[in-house]
């Protein structure tokens, strides 16, 4: 059972790593909006750069 003296600290450090990764992700906006990005794929116009330019739009009178 000596192995627990190694395995538990190892497990805890992995947990700490996971927490660090989670904190990083939270600070980088990953959990702010869980709905919008899933819907974005249906809306080509919301992609930057693809939006028709107001002045070069062919319907300009």
């Amino acid at each position, binding site marked *: 059972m000596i192995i627990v003296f190694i395995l*538990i600290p190892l497990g805890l450090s992995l947990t700490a790593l996971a927490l660090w990764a989670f904190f990083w992700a939270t600070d980088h906006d990953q959990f702010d909006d869980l709905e919008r990005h899933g819907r974005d794929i249906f809306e080509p116009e919301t992609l930057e750069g693809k939006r028709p330019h107001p002045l070069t739009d062919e319907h300009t009178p």
Partner: protein
Amino acid sequence: MDTLAHPPSLDRSRCWHCQESIPADQTARLTHATLGVIGFCCQGCRAAFEIIDANGLLAFYHNRTAFSGRPDVSVTQRFAEFDRKDRQNQLSETTAEGDVDVQLMIEGIRCSACVWLIESRLNSAPGVKQFSLNPALGYARLIFNPASGQLSHLLTRINALGYQPHVIGSVDQITVQRREQRQLLKRLVVAGFGMMQIMMISIALYLSRRSGMDPVISEYLRLVCLLVSAPVVFYSGRTFFAGAWLALRAKQVSMDVSVSLGVLLAFFLSAFNTLTHQGEIYFESALMFIFLLLLSRLIEMSARHRAGSMAQALSQLLPNDVKRRSGTSLETVPLSALNLADEVVVKAHEIVPADGVIIAGQASVDEAWLTGEAQAIHKRCTDSVLGGSVLTEGELVICVTKLGSATLLAQVVKLLLRAQSARPKTVWIADQLARYFVAGVLLVTLMVAVLWAYLDPARLVDAVIAVLVISCPCALSLATPVVVAVAIQRLAQWGILVSTPDALSNLAEIDTVLLDKTGTLTQGKPSVHAIHLYDAAYQPTEVLAIAAALERGQAHVLAQAFRSDQELIATQVRHDIGQGVSGLVNGKPYRLGRLHYVLDQATSVADTANVYLSMQHKLIAAFDLGDNLREGVESLVTALKQLDLRLVILSGDQWAPVQSVAQRLTIDTFAARCTPADKLAYLTTLQAAGHRVLAIGDGINDAPLLQAADTSIAIGSGSTLAQAAAQLIVRTQSLQQITTAIRLARRMRVLIRQNLGWALLYNFTAMPLAAMGLIPPWLAAIGMSMSSLLVLCNAWRLRLDWAQATVQPAPQPRFTLQAERI
């Protein structure tokens, strides 16, 4: 002033203002007359101290219960943009006296001393008329005179004290909410991870009691538990400890107090047992308690934020750039550069940037943000369009009539914010109840402790922790606010705006409905059906022209009936509400209105027509006006009757038209030719007889009635919205939503009762069991959290039920507003 010299909690070796350590190379210090040499960590703190001192507010350091934030002196620049006229118009309102009315959100408020400090500082500033701060939400309302004070100066004043003011309507608010939510999420996840680790080890320890375990290993495992739970308790549990500390400093007990007591007791006792190698450990109960409590807080917070983000989403609906037409050329300008009467081109799939009138083109316009109806409305020349609407097809040229905070969109956002920042009475009562409850719990805990110490000291700790944990009144204090928040949001999606939160609980209670006829049951666009002449000297076209001149510009619906090609001008026009109009046309004094108003004395003329015209008390003509029923009124009336409501029509109109409308709608009780005073008197009689009354009107001429009724609904159309005295405002063309709102309110009442009933039942049955030592601490933690989660889920049902029960198809998700739909 001796007490001011040595604020008790202050460490003199640290920064006096923020209590952060002073960097070695920092030279910011000053010698104060009574306080001696004071050091600061930065120039900003020193400046904040000087301001506070110079204004005689030093008591702040004595009264504060939390240390101040470090003021950021570099941000003065940031506020300059709020002085720009266009920016200010977007974010604020101008009052009748020409003062500017802004809503602020102030970040960094930690205790009531902060509120006192900010209020005294701002109320003494030049130009400030009114400043009030809601400490719970951090919302503040500032009214100031732009002639004698600038917004940027006032904001800087707050900032210099170490708080961050945000003008609501700017993007800043999202950042604040986001930060709050992120922090809670992190705390929750840390608690979750920690809980899982401890659970695993606890199971091993628990099983080892039967099979036996090497004492070295079991001691090692207990030590690991202590090492893991210590950071979790103090990181994740800080939310509760901070709340409890604030409450205790204010000499109050809150829910956080009993939570903190339970957690800390369990933790320190287990730590003590671990280090002394004896007794039970309760780490897993403490962590589970923290985790589940945080979980329900996160759910509650997102429900609250969602309701708020509705207003947020609305205010961001307008585009940043607009295409302005000047002559034949088209230029793209920022929205803020737009002026009144500018011509703007809007194309298919674009958003209308401001309220305006169509001067060219035609298009289908989607006003879902306001009406909740997905179906686009066809509009053509001279129709008006609202800022925030979307063109589904076609192209329009619009002449801008309203901009910024004058637009209907901005008014709606204001209403939503107002409903949100006020607290409904029921929530307040529940909070009070929870507070007494906590005090009772602490008392019971003490009795339990004494009793068990006498009976069986070994089981004392188990019982005390179980009582503290199980009796946490979270469910009780969550029961009402969550349901109300969900309901308000649901209604907003259907085009019903709630302007005070109490409106919904009142709406659930009503048994009688007072209906206005004109503009409510009927379309409110009357037209002249017949003209009876009493004076041969006048022609029908002439009397019509005179009437049109008198009524021009009047807001009353009847005014729209009179239209004439002849352009006569009326001067000295006087409007007597519910009576009529008087004024000079071609130099002659005319009166238009009710018979007794135009004649001022008894007469033999039969009072059969709607409107009379007279000159110097001599009758000239009578007008018969007709009005068609609004679409959907029949089904509304049927639906209202199905809800067991008594319907009464009160109208200022003539007997005959009211009677015909009442017959068509099979409403038995009706009264015609009521003045606003008559309507009020009728209402008071009903209320005196114990009836709860809902008044439905069109907002302007019914304002006194709407205000006096238990609750009221205004059928809003454009300008009526802002001045409506009603508690609820229906903006949809179809009236179906009124019954839906009543049913939702009743449902809400049921849910609140279920929630309160469950919370009380749970607390009162579980507590005796826990006091008897029948519930182990871990089970108490699960029980408490489950009851809170149950209450939350119950509130959530309000969304689910009505997602299917709506009469109309739900609006298509298109932009941010609909994105909030669940």
